[in-house]
């Protein structure tokens, strides 16, 4: 009859004299009834004696320490750890930038979205340097050039209220002769009237009368002067508005949008998250 697991455990503990009273009684009873267990005990005892008698071996060499071996170990941060930490930093930075851009992008294009959903269904054109300034083949039957399209597309910032005010008055700029060159910077004249209530509703500007004459500095700020615009209208050459078409120009405008509060909060959260990441990295590299 094969030995049970219980028998084996009791046998092992019996060898080490580690049985309590009841276990010892149980084992002695099993031992008396089982020749198999008796033989097993004999073998185990012989094996235990043989193991205990294993000699101490002679060391194959001298293990005394050299001064170099005794020097305190300097804990160096493994190269792979540094590299992976750097990769993680870059990844997190990238995610952070994308996140911030994602938050700011819808805000800066708010006006564009607004135009797209306006009842006039006038699709705003992108502002670019290659604007078709004059097209005489269409009989010159165009409205005066205005900068309302510029205003609505890229300048929903409070700083552009003056320009917006001009749009609200539905009047051409003082430097733009009525009935002159028709093509505007993105929107036909008939659209601007439709856009005005919508833009007012969104709070993009606060109409003020009598500010038209003050547009020159603003236009200059946008990258081209009133004289340049007038000259462009007369010569058929587009005004130099490349600066205005630059994406970089959008950033400060977007910063002043109504989502400022949300952006600040998100910025705080990101900063706190960033601090946490740096601390974890420091701990990690330290470990």
């Amino acid at each position, binding site marked *: 009859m094969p030995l049970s697991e219980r028998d084996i455990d009791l046998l092992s503990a019996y060898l080490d004299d580690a049985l309590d009273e009841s276990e010892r009684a149980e084992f002695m009873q099993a031992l008396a009834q089982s020749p198999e267990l008796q033989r097993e005990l004999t*073998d185990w005892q012989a094996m235990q004696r043989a193991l205990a008698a294993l000699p101490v071996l002679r060391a194959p060499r001298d293990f005394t*320490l050299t001064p170099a071996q005794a020097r305190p170990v300097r804990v160096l941060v493994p190269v792979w750890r540094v590299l992976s930490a750097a990769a993680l930093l870059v990844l997190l930075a990238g995610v952070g930038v994308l996140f911030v851009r994602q938050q700011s992008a819808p805000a800066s294009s708010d006006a564009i979205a607004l135009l797209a959903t306006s009842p006039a269904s006038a699709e705003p054109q992108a502002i670019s340097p290659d604007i078709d300034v004059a097209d005489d083949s269409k009989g010159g039957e165009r409205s005066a050039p205005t900068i309302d399209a510029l205003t609505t597309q890229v300048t929903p910032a409070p700083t552009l209220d003056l320009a917006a005010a001009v749009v609200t008055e539905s009047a051409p700029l003082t430097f733009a002769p009525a009935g002159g060159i028709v093509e505007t910077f993105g929107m036909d004249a008939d659209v601007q009237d439709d856009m005005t209530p919508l833009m007012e509703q969104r709070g993009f500007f606060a109409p003020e009368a009598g500010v038209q004459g003050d547009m020159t500095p603003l236009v200059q700020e946008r990258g081209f002067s009133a004289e340049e615009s007038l000259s462009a209208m007369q010569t058929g050459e587009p005004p130099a508005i490349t600066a205005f078409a630059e994406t970089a120009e959008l950033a400060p405008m977007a910063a002043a949008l109504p989502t400022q509060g949300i952006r600040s909060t998100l910025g705080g959260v990101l900063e706190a998250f960033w601090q946490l990441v740096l601390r974890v990295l420091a701990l990690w590299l330290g470990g």
Partner: protein
Amino acid sequence: MIPDDESRLVSRAQGGDLEAFNALVVRYQDYLYTIAYRLMGDAAAASDMTQEAFIAAYQKLSSYSGGSLKAWLARIVTNRCYDELRRGKRRHTTALDDLSERSGARLNLVDSAPSPESVAQQNELQRALQHCIAGLPPDQRLVLVMSDVQGMTYQEIAETAALNLGTVKSRLSRARMAMRACLQSIQELLPAEYRLVNNK
């Protein structure tokens, strides 16, 4: 009881005296190497573990607060070997024939028997035991060597290997059972007087 000269050597070594520490190394290097060899089953690995254990001991000598230095060093080398075995870097298992050829010169006895025939028989048995120890799983090998080779108690094994007493007992009984089966399987290689009585 710690010999006075050992206490003095330890104190000096704790103060950074390498010469004093090396005197302790010379005293215990055979003992530590033997433990390492029993656990690793390989002379080269045992040498590495012994050297690492002495380096580690020197570096953390300040944490030694008395008691048996021999036992303290034994714990260090045992843990080193166990970590190494668990990492699976050294999974040395050898055939008995290979063992007798390869490590014959390394199994020098400190106290050699007088008769050449007796030495040969003893060596056969030791090789068989070492072969069977090396065939055990690391967990079982650790407790068997600590218990039956080093003579540690259950409590000492539990503390050294960070195991509870129940685990120590069960692993030890399984290790002994496996050893018994291994020795039985190679009985014909053993001298007659060392053969097990239970041939089933």
